[in-house]
């Protein structure tokens, strides 16, 4: 019994490794989350007419996340101008503070697309452990780059990646 289990896992593990090597990038899962005004939103509908997309997970209780969002927001207009990128900021605040996200975002003057993931369904489907966690998707909607944590100045590195993706290059090379 145990031997079969171990064998099965070895096979699976091999497949996982192999799949990784061949992976041109996972597509977004289909998960129903919320918009700021309470309507439901399917994450498959995240799109940007073939231009790069950035998805960033954050929460009100996460200070580095808010610093990261501030930094992205400061540069957003310039980034859109140069690459056409669209940023989706997904708040994983739960019922404790979901209703506070909208007035907070307005108070900050952030202009990215805002989504609410109050029970972490999208977060789980994207295998996010810790926030902040940022994904960059190419024009085909495939994840080509991920980064977790935020340090002062990360936005410069992120912008380089977005430029590469906008130019159709592989950002990992």
């Amino acid at each position: 019994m145990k031997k079969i289990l171990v064998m099965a896992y070895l096979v699976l593990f091999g497949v996982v490794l192999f799949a990784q090597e061949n992976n041109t990038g996972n597509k977004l899962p289909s998960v129903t989350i919320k918009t700021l005004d309470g309507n439901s939103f399917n994450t498959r509908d995240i799109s940007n007419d073939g231009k790069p997309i950035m998805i960033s997970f954050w929460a009100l209780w996460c200070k580095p996340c808010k610093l990261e969002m501030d930094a992205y927001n400061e540069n957003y207009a310039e980034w859109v101008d140069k690459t056409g990128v669209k940023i989706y900021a997904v708040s994983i605040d739960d019922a404790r503070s979901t209703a506070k996200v909208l007035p907070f975002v307005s108070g900050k003057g952030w202009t990215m697309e805002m989504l609410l993931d109050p029970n972490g369904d999208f977060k789980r489907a994207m295998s996010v452990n810790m926030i902040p966690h940022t994904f960059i998707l190419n024009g085909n909607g495939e994840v080509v780059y991920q980064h977790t944590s935020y340090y002062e100045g990360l936005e410069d590195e992120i912008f380089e990646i977005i430029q590469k993706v906008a130019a159709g290059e592989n950002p990992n090379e």
Partner: protein
Amino acid sequence: MKKTLLTITAILAIGISLNAQEFLEKSEVHGSFETDGMFYQADNALGITDTLINGKNFGFNAFADIIYTLGDFTAGFRYEAYAPPIAGFDPRLEGQGFPYLWATYATENYSFTVGNFYEQFGNGMVLRTYQEWTLGYDNSINGVRVIAKPVKGMILKGVYGTQRFFWNKWEKNARGIVKGVDAELNFNDLFSSMAGSKLKLTLGGSAVSKYQVDDNPFYKMPQNVAAFAGRFNVGLGKFNFTSEYAYKINDPSAVNNYIYKDGQGLVFTGSYSTAGLGLFAMFKRYDNMSYKSDQSVNGNALHINYLPALTEDHIYMLASMYPYATQPNGEIGFQIQVNYKIPKDTWIGGKYGAGLSVNFSQINDIDRQKAHDTAGINQSGTLGYKSDFFKFGKDVFNRDLTVAINKKFSKKVKGIFTLINQEYNQAVVLGHTGEPNVKANIAILDMTYKFTSNKALRGEFQGLWTKEDKQDWAAILLEYTISPHWFFSVADQYNYGNEIKANRLHYYTGSFGYTYQTTRIAVTYGRQREGVVCVGGVCRQVPASNGFSITLSSNF
């Protein structure tokens, strides 16, 4: 469990190896893992002695989560190991296995899940299952879930199953069975006449029932406990209102001291948002709303519903010294918040603009009056008490005023200045019976200096002043970061004002970490006070200890 796992894995493995090429083209596999290790050392000043450690000088928590997708089919599992759990985690977690195992078939309009799942109805006041790794909390339901979207704007859900209780397998007549249905209607999607309306309207309703066999030797227990909730979300231009009301039939339990009172919950929020300004107000009242799938279980397990603490969530070391926790047996309170972006080229705004946020919240006990002439308030086996719905009880549980200003001074320098005034009922929240409420003032200066485009030094300077509990504290944190890979930090919290001189302790820590894309390793050495700690770009809940800790986390 093991058999099911074996079968699923075997089928997957065989299927994949037989038809590897085709599967590989269509399959997607991704996942994540994390290991948290801790090596403890004795620290007599903290009361951690060798005898107490008793040879168990390390803790180890780990998980691996894998998700496999093939078209409309998705399946996954999470392996967890606590060998033994890190201090501060429930000792009942000790062990290892696959507590989360699931498969979902989902099309555009329908979704069908078997196995473990996480679900939330509305705001969770009657049902929410979720997992929080940093707290060691998981109340997933193991059973079936169906979600249907028959027309655009309508979502129907049904769930059935039993909840995770550490590693205890569910057996007949053990803990309860949970059943629930939920419906949500979005009027703007549902009716074409409202599609472009300024009024955004969503209505929802849920019904949940728990069945548990009555085996209580003293009381006759209701075997079916039902709970109902209704909610709305109304958006009107810059205004947004949400509310949820819940009602639960009588549900005597270890948490409410076996009283036969029914339960009620109400949360109402209103907000006004315009570019640069956000206003928020909330009212809430919970009355006897603990709802668990086992009446006899106390503590952090088997919750069917979710009752969050509706107060400001503090992050800084000293500000999180007195974190409020919801009192499910009864609390009433309100919260107001202002977020304002101070324009550039004003006195405070300066060249780069600044931000102001003010939050005030107060939570009291609910009003409680005798329900019977002959029985005391909250006496077991009675109706417990009567309560005037909107009346505030006289005991203050928590009061918090937080004012924060953030400002960028130049391209290199920015800062956040925070002032907090708190009152905290340690008798009720922590069970320190007879202790007075803590009244504390806290001031925090958080400054960042950017040396180059990717190197920065951040310093936090904090003070907490109170006559109660352990009296005055000071804290300092210095953090040097090199984006995108490195962080180094040192911190000290010093209880300099403690009335007992021997307890004027330093809680020092040193840590560093390395991040490569999503792989992150962090090492910390030193003393840690219980609370939420944010260093190196990530926040997590940390228990009290002294020693080394190492965290490795990645996803793919």
